[in-house]
């Protein structure tokens, strides 16, 4: 594709600047400050002490404490298990929805709904109506089957949050995988049928390889978003009991907005951004491969 009249390019290029400036102002400048704050001993509850430059003391305190490793482990378990559940159930639902039947559009709409529900409400509805050990639906069914009701969020906080976050993200995976299933090349399938391949063989040798690219997109994006889970934890367990269901983003909130330890919270923020940047590198490598030159 040719570029359009170079003469008209310069004024239109300026259209870019407002977006770049605003986004940089809100995301980049504050991050530089986060790095700076992470070297300060600064607690808003102790204005008398002021802010003191302490080099890496905040990082040292974080890495020496045991909570950080609990939180890091939680973040890993939460993200990995949610991704796995999303992938398995997303694939199953996509396969179910990739058939022709009455009311397909309606069911698709129903399956997608949880994705649009705000995390705060998703957490509250699950905590009360579904999982409450006295009045929740699960308690009722436990009673019907003669079992004791389980206090899900108290006894299995992390597992319950995994289920809850999966419930919200499975539709995202379903939609992407469904888009993949619907774009399986017809000629390859026909060639396979002529060769006498069974449905199962066709699935393994044609559909799965084609789906891999879609699954890769879903997993990479899902990973980056699910790592940032916050609202669901805030309204259900507040990260407890203890640190049992605190992940990295919620840890920043606890240290920063409950403990008012600006330096400590900033240091954790820096650690999270470094982890994310490493993951982003893989996403970008993949995206650049996908678009290969058709971006500009």
């Amino acid at each position, binding site marked *: 594709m040719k*570029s*359009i*009249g170079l003469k*008209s*390019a310069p004024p*239109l290029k*300026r*259209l*870019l600047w407002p*977006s*770049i400036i*605003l*986004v940089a102002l*809100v*995301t980049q400048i*504050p991050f530089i*400050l*986060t790095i700076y704050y992470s070297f300060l001993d600064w607690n808003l509850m102790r204005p008398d002490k002021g802010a003191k430059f302490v080099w890496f003391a905040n990082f040292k305190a974080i890495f020496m404490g045991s909570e950080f490793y609990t939180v890091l482990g939680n973040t890993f378990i939460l993200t990995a298990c949610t991704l796995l559940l999303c992938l398995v159930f997303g694939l199953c*639902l996509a396969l179910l*929805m990739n058939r022709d*039947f009455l009311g397909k559009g309606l*069911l698709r709409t129903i399956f*997608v*709904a*949880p994705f*649009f*529900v*705000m995390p*705060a*409400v*998703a957490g*509250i*509805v699950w905590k*009360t*109506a579904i999982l409450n050990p006295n*009045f929740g*639906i699960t308690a009722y069914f436990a*009673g019907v089957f003669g079992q004791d009701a389980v206090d899900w969020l108290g006894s299995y906080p992390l597992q319950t949050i995994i289920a809850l976050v999966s419930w919200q993200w499975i539709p995202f995976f379903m939609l*992407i995988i469904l*888009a993949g299933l619907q774009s399986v090349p017809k000629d390859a399938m026909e060639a396979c049928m002529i060769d006498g391949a069974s449905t199962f063989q066709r699935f393994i040798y044609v559909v799965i390889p084609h789906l891999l690219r*879609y699954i890769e997109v*879903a997993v990479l994006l899902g990973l980056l978003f699910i790592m940032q889970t*916050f*609202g669901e934890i805030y*309204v259900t367990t507040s990260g407890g009991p203890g640190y049992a269901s605190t992940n990295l983003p919620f840890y920043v909130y606890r240290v*920063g907005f409950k403990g008012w330890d*600006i330096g400590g919270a*900033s240091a954790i*923020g*820096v650690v*999270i*951004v470094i982890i*994310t*940047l490493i993951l*982003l590198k893989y*996403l*970008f490598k993949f995206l650049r491969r*996908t678009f290969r030159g058709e*971006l*500009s």
Partner: protein
Amino acid sequence: MKKLLAVLLTIFTYLAAFIYFFPLLWMFITGFKNEGEAVIMPPSLFFHPTLDNYKIVWGSGIGAFLGNSAIIVVISTLLALILGVSAAYALSMFRMKKADDILFWFISTKMLPAVGVIIPVYIIFKKLGLLDSHLALILLYTAMNIPLAVWMMRSFFKDIPYELIESTQVDGATGLQGFFKVTLPLVKPGVISTGLLCFVFAWNEFLFGVSLTYTNSSTMPVFMASFMTQEGLFWGKMSAVATTAVLPSVILGWFTQKQLVQGLTMGAVKG
């Protein structure tokens, strides 16, 4: 035999959809029960639906929070659209050396965790006296949605045949006229679904809302969380509030279904 299997699979799909949707359905139904019936065991399926919860909730000032959400979300969505569409237009129509790098820079800002900047953002807004103000959240939500708008719109602009743009140039129209008369109408469906998705994300945003507002400009998710801590025992009222809070984003979200996959994967996958 094959037909039977197909019917069974369809029934199974319906069943799965019912179970999947059940938490939301139950929330919706509970909103119409009086408080006694809301927590009764076994759960009552047959009851006299009542609008009492909605009346009480509306009387208790939920309107102010809905208003905050509406003002912040609508203004930030419009701003993100104006800025994002023009940036995407410049990026996709005019070859620039650094176009990929700019695109990837945009997306990296969207992917980086908000908690990485929340502390300085709080301090800055505190110093500027903007804590608990509409302006603070409008700025943040606009910046949060611009990358999404740029990437989504880029993939819609790409679908326009080059000859069409060229023909507007031949007619002697300026770049701007060509844009408003030819290009923009072509991508109208894309602009609409981009706007709807920006709306949904801003409407549901929680971290910035809960960290930067207290009472004056709290949005619905923040009100929801504090309502639960204060009146968490009143399930009927809580369900009514929750239903009110999720309805706008779920309904608008449904309208984006066609472009949702393309939008969420930044054009890497066409839905």
